[in-house]
């Protein structure tokens, strides 16, 4: 992953429905490195954005350049089949008249460069599809079909991989079955990925960067760990408020079967789920699982109590709830509480308080 100035997708689109309602109205720079998630609820325009980038949809007013190369402006519109992309659709999209292997060959025959044997084998291995290549799509499970579809998109050797909710059509079990393949994909191939999803758990697990869309507009963008610690997200996204932290397993407590995860300036205890010492993990703490006390209560069942400083309070919302942003060294926490509690505790910016963390989700 290089941090070259050119590693950006500059997307500027205005797309309107026939009745003139805005589907998409954005002007954004999305990093073309690692996994960038395009996150939003249904109808937020996230799939339209991906389709515009793929050239499957043509925005009337649009400018698009990828790594400094123009794909669309007032005079240019590169058709889909000339864009160096791979696309994984939401539902399986294998050609039913071709076997899994022939589906892959369809891509290889049309790839920009010849696919060398080593790369082909690596794709097959990473996706774990060697054993099912001879089958036809209707003989494969939903998860298997999606793995073939991802392999097919890789074999076209794209410079940008677009994924439109690749797991949404799968049940929870199949989803868990595919997620590790997506992580391996990310680690094994240096291809920037744009990942559209409405599922926070997928985004939290996979993404490095996130673009949050609501009603066709960008409401937040930035590194994943920053965006959800913001306390001014639109109400519709408030449920997702919380922080994502990258840490390391540093200690194990054999007696109570706990493990200690350290971040730059703080740490928390989690039930030991078998991770090795020194392993990097990503955790998510939702705002609704964080409460505040003025002193360090010892008489509580809550294990994770952290000294924090109030850095901002958002009481501008039109309901009874407030979001409070807290700093613990260089990290953030977000706590959700009633406006009554904010008033009762006399919370103000700069105040030292104790955060009690009721639950932590280990993402991976």
């Amino acid at each position, binding site marked *: 992953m290089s941090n070259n100035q050119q590693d950006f997708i500059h997307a500027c689109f205005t797309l309107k429905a026939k009745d003139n309602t805005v589907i998409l109205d954005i002007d954004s720079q999305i990093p073309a490195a690692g996994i960038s998630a395009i996150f939003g609820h249904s109808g937020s325009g996230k799939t339209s954005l991906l389709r515009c980038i793929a050239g499957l949809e043509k925005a009337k007013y649009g400018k698009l350049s990828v790594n400094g190369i123009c794909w669309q402006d007032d005079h240019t519109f590169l058709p889909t089949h000339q864009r160096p992309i791979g696309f994984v659709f939401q*539902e399986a999209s294998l*050609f039913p008249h071709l076997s899994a292997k022939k589906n892959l060959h369809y891509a290889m025959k049309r790839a920009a460069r010849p696919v060398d044997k080593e790369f082909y084998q690596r794709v097959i291995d990473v996706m774990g599809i060697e054993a099912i290549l001879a089958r036809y799509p209707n003989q494969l499970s939903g998860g298997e079909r999606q793995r073939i579809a991802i392999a097919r998109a890789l074999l076209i050797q794209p410079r940008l991989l677009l994924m439109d909710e690749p797991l949404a059509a799968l049940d929870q079990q199949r989803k868990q079955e595919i997620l590790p393949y997506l992580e391996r994909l990310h680690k094994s191939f240096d291809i920037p990925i744009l990942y559209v999803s409405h599922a926070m758990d997928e985004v939290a697990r996979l993404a490095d960067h996130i673009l949050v869309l609501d009603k066709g507009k960008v409401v937040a963008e930035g590194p994943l760990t920053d965006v959800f610690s913001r306390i001014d997200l639109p109400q519709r996204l408030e449920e997702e408020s919380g922080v994502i932290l990258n840490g390391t397993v540093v200690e194990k407590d054999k007696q109570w079967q706990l493990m200690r995860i350290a971040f730059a300036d703080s740490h928390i205890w989690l039930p030991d789920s078998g991770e090795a010492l020194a392993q990097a993990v990503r955790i998510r703490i939702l705002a609704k699982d964080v409460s505040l006390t003025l002193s360090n209560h010892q008489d509580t069942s809550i294990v994770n109590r952290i000294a924090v400083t109030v850095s901002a309070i958002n009481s501008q919302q039109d309901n009874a709830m407030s979001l409070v942003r807290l700093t613990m060294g260089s990290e953030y926490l977000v706590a959700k509480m009633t406006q009554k509690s904010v008033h009762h505790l006399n919370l103000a910016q700069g105040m030292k308080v104790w955060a009690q963390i009721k639950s932590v989700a280990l993402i991976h």
Partner: protein
Amino acid sequence: MILSPADLAAIGLTLRLASTVTIILLIIGTPIAWWLAKTQSWLKGPVAAIVALPLVLPPTVLGFYLLIAMGPNGFIGELTQSLGLGTLPFTFWGLVVASVIYSMPFVIQPIHNAMEALGERPLEVAATLRAGPIDRFFTIVLPLAKPGFISASILGFAHTVGEFGVILMIGGNIPDETRVVSVQVYDHVESLEYAQAHTLSALLVIFSFLVLLTLYWSQRRSRNATIGVMK
């Protein structure tokens, strides 16, 4: 059940006519069906209606207008004459032209339906795999619409075999040129040769039954194979 040389000639002519017409219709019908399946143009309705006209028009009406159009003063007639081909009525190729028009809906509609049932998705997928429009048509549309093409061929062929009215209007009754099986049966009945009429008629009944049975089976098989549905 012995067929006379005239009967055999009629059968041979009918098969030649039906094969020629089916091949021509597959060639010109495919692009029309594709256009109908894809276009957003207001012309779609009118064109689809014209294609379907032979389904409702009496064969005599169609035959009458074709006779005029292909005659020495009709626009098709003038064209063929200027090309040095003479006029088409009462010739084999006159029958071919008339049958192509008369059987057109039976070929175009199954292909059109199969292509429409494909939806946009397979084509979008192919486009993201670097397949250009022509590539997509030959590698995705044609194979996925195959059941439609099979139905179209069977129906087009069988319908041409079963033609009578248009042929009588355009072709008359010239042995080895325009006297097809249906006309031959008519001749036999007119001359009270019921035994020969029986033989030929029974053959046509068996042929038609087998054709429809094949069609039914091929459609059921393709449904079972879920061809045309993206998996």
